[in-house]
C-alpha cells in the first residue's frame, strides 16, 4: 500500500537549538502527482524537504520516500530523488557541460556522454555547452538545475522554490515541463509562493510556523475552511476594509487592487453586515468563489492568533 506513495511521512519534527522548526508534519504524495508545498518564508518548508531526502535527520517521526526509510536508507533515497535547492547550487566556475558531467559521474550513470548530450539538446543549450554556468541568466540557471536533477532519471523530484526570481514566461515553460514529467509517473513536490502555481498542483499542503494546516486538492482545501466570500468594487476600499474589520460575520478582508475580498465563516451574518456597511450606491457587491489565497491568509491568521505570534 505504502508503495503507491512516493512520499509518506508521519509526525516529522525538527528542532534547531530551541527553535521548533517542523512540528508533527505528516504528508503523503502519490507517484505521478504534483504536490504543492506552500507557506510563508521560515515556515519550515525547506527543512521538511531536506528531511525527506536524507539531508537532515528528523528529531522525531518516521516515514518512507519511494518505499525507503527516511531514517535508514538515505543513500538509496538520494539515488532515486532529484533535489533542486532553493539557491542555484551548481558550480558557476564550471561550464554547463562540466556541471552535467560531474552530476552524471556522481550517480555513476552509464552512457554518460550520450546522456549529457541528450540533456543539453533538451535544454536547448547544446550550442552553449562550453559556457560557464555563472554567466547564465536566472531562468537558464533554473533550467540547467532542473536538467541536472533529472539526469539520473529520478522517480521523485523535490523542488525548493524553483521559480523564485524567474520571469513569467520561463515559469510557464517550467510548469509545462513539470506536467510532462508527472505524466511520465514522476512525483513532484514543489514549494512555491505563487498562487497561480499552487492552482496548477494536483494537491497542496499549507504549512505555517512548522505546522501543517491543510492538505488536499485545491477545491478540498478551500472547502475545508467553509468560508463565504464577497467581492466589493468601488472607491475608498481601504476605508471600507477598516470599517469592516471587526464587524459581525467578517473574518477577514483582503484588498486585491480594485476589489476587496470579504470572507467569513457565517455567510448569513456576513451578508447582513455587507448590506448595512457597503450597501450604498458607491459600492458594487457580488458573491464570489473563495480563492486559495483567501484560505491561506485565513489559515495563517487563525494559526498566528492561536500561537499569539505575528503573521
Amino acid at each position, binding site marked *: 500500500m505504502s508503495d503507491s506513495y512516493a512520499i509518506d511521512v508521519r509526525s516529522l519534527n525538527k528542532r534547531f537549538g530551541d527553535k521548533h522548526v517542523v512540528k508533527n508534519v505528516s504528508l503523503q504524495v502519490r507517484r505521478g502527482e504534483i504536490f504543492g508545498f506552500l507557506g510563508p518564508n521560515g515556515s519550515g518548508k525547506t527543512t521538511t524537504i531536506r528531511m525527506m531526502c536524507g539531508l*537532515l*535527520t528528523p528529531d522525531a517521526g518516521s516515514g518512507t520516500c519511494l518505499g525507503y526509510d527516511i531514517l535508514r536508507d538515505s*543513500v538509496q533515497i538520494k539515488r532515486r530523488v532529484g*533535489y533542486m535547492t532553493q*539557491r542555484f*547550487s551548481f558550480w558557476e566556475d564550471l561550464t554547463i557541460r562540466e556541471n552535467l558531467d560531474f552530476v552524471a559521474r556522481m*550517480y555513476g550513470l552509464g552512457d554518460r556522454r550520450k546522456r549529457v548530450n541528450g540533456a543539453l539538446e533538451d535544454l536547448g543549450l547544446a550550442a552553449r555547452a562550453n559556457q560557464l554556468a555563472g554567466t547564465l541568466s536566472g531562468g537558464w540557471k533554473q533550467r540547467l538545475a532542473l536538467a541536472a536533477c533529472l539526469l539520473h532519471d529520478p522517480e521523485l523530484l523535490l523542488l525548493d522554490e524553483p521559480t523564485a526570481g524567474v520571469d513569467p514566461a520561463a515559469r510557464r515553460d517550467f510548469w509545462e515541463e513539470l506536467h510532462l514529467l508527472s505524466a511520465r509517473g514522476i512525483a513532484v513536490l514543489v514549494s512555491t509562493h505563487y498562487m497561480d502555481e499552487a492552482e496548477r498542483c494536483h494537491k497542496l499542503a499549507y504549512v505555517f510556523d512548522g505546522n501543517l494546516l491543510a492538505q488536499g486538492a485545491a477545491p478540498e482545501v478551500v472547502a475545508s475552511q467553509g468560508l463565504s466570500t464577497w467581492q466589493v468594487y468601488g472607491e475608498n476600499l481601504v476605508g471600507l476594509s477598516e470599517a469592516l474589520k471587526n464587524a459581525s460575520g467578517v473574518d477577514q478582508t483582503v484588498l486585491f487592487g480594485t476589489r476587496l475580498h470579504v470572507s467569513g465563516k457565517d455567510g448569513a451574518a456576513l451578508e447582513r453586515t455587507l448590506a448595512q456597511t457597503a450597501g450604498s450606491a458607491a459600492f458594487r457587491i457580488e458573491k464570489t468563489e473563495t480563492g486559495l489565497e483567501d484560505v491561506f491568509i485565513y489559515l495563517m491568521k487563525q494559526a498566528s492568533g492561536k500561537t499569539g505570534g505575528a503573521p
Partner: protein
Amino acid sequence: MKTSNGFSLSRWWSMVLKEFLQLRRDRLTFGMIIGIPIAQLVLFGFAINNDPRHLATAVISADHSEFTRSFVAAMESSEYFDIVGTLPDEEAGRSALASGNVQFVVNIPAGFTGRLLRGERPALLIEADATDPAATGMALAAAGQLARTVAAKDMTGTLSFLAGGQDPFEVRVHRLYNPEGITRYNIIPGLIGVILCMTMVLMTGLAITRERERGTMENILAMPVSPFEVMTGKLIPYIAIGLIQITIILVAARFLFRVPCAGSIGMVYGAALLFVLANLTVGIAMSSLARNQLQAMQMTLFYFLPNIILSGFMFPFQGMPKWAQAVGNVLPLTYFNRLIRGIFLKDNLFQDLWPNIWPLMVFTLIVMVIALTFYRRTLD
C-alpha cells in the same frame, strides 16, 4: 541639483557605528584583534632565544680523572651544556648526534690526563651538530674558553706551570653536517615545510568552505556520495599541488642556492608527503569549523604563527623555554623540520627519522578523527 553634499557628522557616525556593530558580531576577527598581539608578544618576548643554553651533551670518556671531571663540570656550569649521559664509543656518539638526541658529544681520549700533566697539550674533541649554526655557535665559542677557565681554577700549586702561557690543552671542535656553518643550508630545507604548511592548510580550508559558502555543498550532500569520497576526492589535487611545490623548492635549493642534499630525494618526497597529509587534515578540520572563507583564512593565520616560530624553523628549538618546546612538540612543522634537515644535512637513516615520523602520523590520525567528527554529512 547639488553635485556634492558636504561632510555630515551624523552620516559619518552612522558609518562608524555600523562598523563597530559588525566587528562585535564577528567573534573570530575580534579574537584576532586581541589574540594576535598577545600571542606575538608571548612568543617573541619569551619563547625566542637566539643564545640557546642547556643544550643536550653526551660525554665519551676514555679517561676518568679529576681534570676530566672538572672540565665536564665546567661545561655544565657554563649553562650552555647539559650533560645528559655518557656514551661508550664514538659510534654511539655519531648516532646520538644523527638522531638529534644530543647537540654535542665531548670525546676525552685515553691518556688525556697523563699527557696533560706531561705538558703535551693534549686535544679534547667536541663534535657538534651544526645543522643550525645559530643554535650551536655561542655554545662552541664558550667551550673554547673553558680550557683557560679550568686551567686557572684547577692548576694551582705544583701544577701551576701548566696554567701559565698557552692553554694546557686544546679544545678541538668538529662541526658536523654543516661544517662551514652556512645558514642557508639550514633555512632552505626548512622552507619546504613552511611553504607547504601555509599553502596546504589555506587551500584545503578555502576549498571546502567555498563549497559551503556558495551552497554547492548542499548539492553534493544530496547526491549519493560518502563523506570519505568527498574529503579524499577534494584532497587529491592539493596533494599534487604540494608535490609540485616541493619539486620547485628542491630544484631551487639545488641549482639556485646550491644546498647539497646528503640524503635521498625519495626520502625527501616521502617525508614531505607525510607532512602534506598532516596539513591537509588540518585544513579539513578548520574548514569544518569555519563558517566562511574569511574565517578559514583567519584560522590558517592562527595556525601558521606558532608553527613558524615554535617549530625550530626560525629560532633554535633547544633555546626555547620548556613550555614553548611543549607547544612546539605538538606542531607538525617541528617534526618535519627535523626530518627534512636530517635527510638533507645529516643523511639520516630510517631509524634516525622514525622518532619524528610517528608523531606526524599520530597527529594526522587525531586531526582526521576531529575533522570527520565535525564534518557534517547532513546539514544539522
